[in-house]
């Protein structure tokens, strides 16, 4: 069965943190990493993320994810930008077929660094946040219930449809649809397999709409409540303020470095 989210329930400070504070973290840390002129800075933040992952008891999973992303893209980008970036002036190595330029390598490191900050913090948020709580928090902050419905429904509907797909594969195989063979015979099997999913989805959509309507979906002039609690604690507010302060400080430092 397909997984519906990355969330791993753990008893940790990161798990208890309000989802909104984590969203602040993604943006504040990410933007800071992008604007600061030296690429080393983003790697410092990445180290910080590793510490956070350790606190969240997810160090192993996090490391695996970060390495699986960082290594291939680093190699690709150093190859692409290092050898072929038009900005290259300082040559640090000559490999015969092309010359490796310092500016390109630094640019590659900068991109990868910023991406790692964004992806790492995003990943940490998804692994430490129950999606229901994230939506509850956003609804609490004034987000429309309909948007909340869409995010949660997508996460829940897809695995359901994937299970359905397996049954349809069996049903169509029993009607002689072969999923082996040449490219064209496999392509030909695509419609008998996807078709029933699409067609029956419409009946499903209609009935699910009925269900939502009878559950008071989209009632106007009512402030909806959620079963899952979403309350900001003082510590969450402190974290948010610290993150904003960090971003402001980085901006100040960047400006200072540029003009001084």
């Amino acid at each position, binding site marked *: 069965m397909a997984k519906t989210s990355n969330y791993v329930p753990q008893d940790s400070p990161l798990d208890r943190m309000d989802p909104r504070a984590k969203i602040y973290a993604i943006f504040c840390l990410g933007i800071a990493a992008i604007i600061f002129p030296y690429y080393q800075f983003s790697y410092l933040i990445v180290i910080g993320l590793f510490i956070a992952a350790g606190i969240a008891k997810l160090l192993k999973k996090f490391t695996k994810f970060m390495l699986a992303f960082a290594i291939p893209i680093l190699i690709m980008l150093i190859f692409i*930008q290092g050898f072929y970036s038009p900005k290259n002036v300082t040559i640090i190595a000559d490999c015969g077929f092309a010359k490796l330029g310092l500016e390109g390598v630094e640019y590659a490191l900068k991109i990868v660094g910023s991406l790692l900050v964004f992806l790492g913090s995003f990943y940490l948020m998804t692994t430490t946040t129950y999606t229901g709580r994230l939506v509850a928090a956003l609804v609490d902050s004034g987000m429309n219930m309909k948007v909340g419905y869409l995010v949660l*429904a997508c996460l829940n509907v897809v695995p359901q449809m994937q299970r359905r797909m397996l049954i349809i594969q069996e049903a169509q195989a029993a009607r002689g649809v072969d999923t082996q063979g040449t490219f064209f015979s496999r*392509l030909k099997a695509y419609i008998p397999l996807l078709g029933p999913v699409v067609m029956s989805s419409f009946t499903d*959509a209609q009935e699910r709409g009925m269900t939502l309507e009878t559950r008071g979906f989209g009632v106007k002039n009512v402030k909806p409540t959620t079963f899952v609690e979403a309350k900001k604690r003082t510590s969450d507010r402190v974290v948010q303020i610290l993150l904003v302060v960090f971003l402001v400080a980085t901006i100040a430092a960047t400006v200072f470095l540029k003009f001084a």
Partner: protein
Amino acid sequence: MKTEKVGFIGGIKEQFSTKSLVLIPIAVGINLIGGTLASALKLPLFLDMIGTIISAALAGPWVAALVGLLTNVFLALVSNPVYLPYSLVSIGCGLVTGYMIRGGMFKKVWGVVLTWLACTLLSVAISSTITVLVFGGATGATGTSVFTATLIAATKNIVKSVVATSMIENLVDRGIAFLIAYILLKRIPKRFMSQYSVEANFDDAEIDD
């Protein structure tokens, strides 16, 4: 139940009735299942916008755009955050397809071809921009990235290589996706369509005895 003429924003709002809203997760599901199915059948294709096209035809451009966005958000949440910036491509495709269908493009085969080409061009433009500006040319060690790298080594031009790769990839993939979506759309039962169509081309006469 009569639809009145409303402004642009009102028109967008009208596309989001409960009936359309429940269609969105299902269209996202079709996108993703289309993709999984393609890899299960070992087809070298993505085929991950069939749901977007179908929702564009049924519920309009903005619903389709949202389907595109949510598909990428879903992938970002459960598989790889790299998908997130590319949601712009999906949104763009949803809008272009939706508005072209609104303009009557799906009534004739050449219209479908035109929509396919427009969608492909837009995809290439947006996705190349993202690949170059956000990711510096590659998003990892995927087949596409390796192909791009090879092209760069040959042409010594990053932008051109990214665009060329994206062009090949999108042209074939979107083509087959449009073909399949078109075939499926033609098979959607009238009974269902009549519940969706905003146009009043259905016999809506009073009940009489």
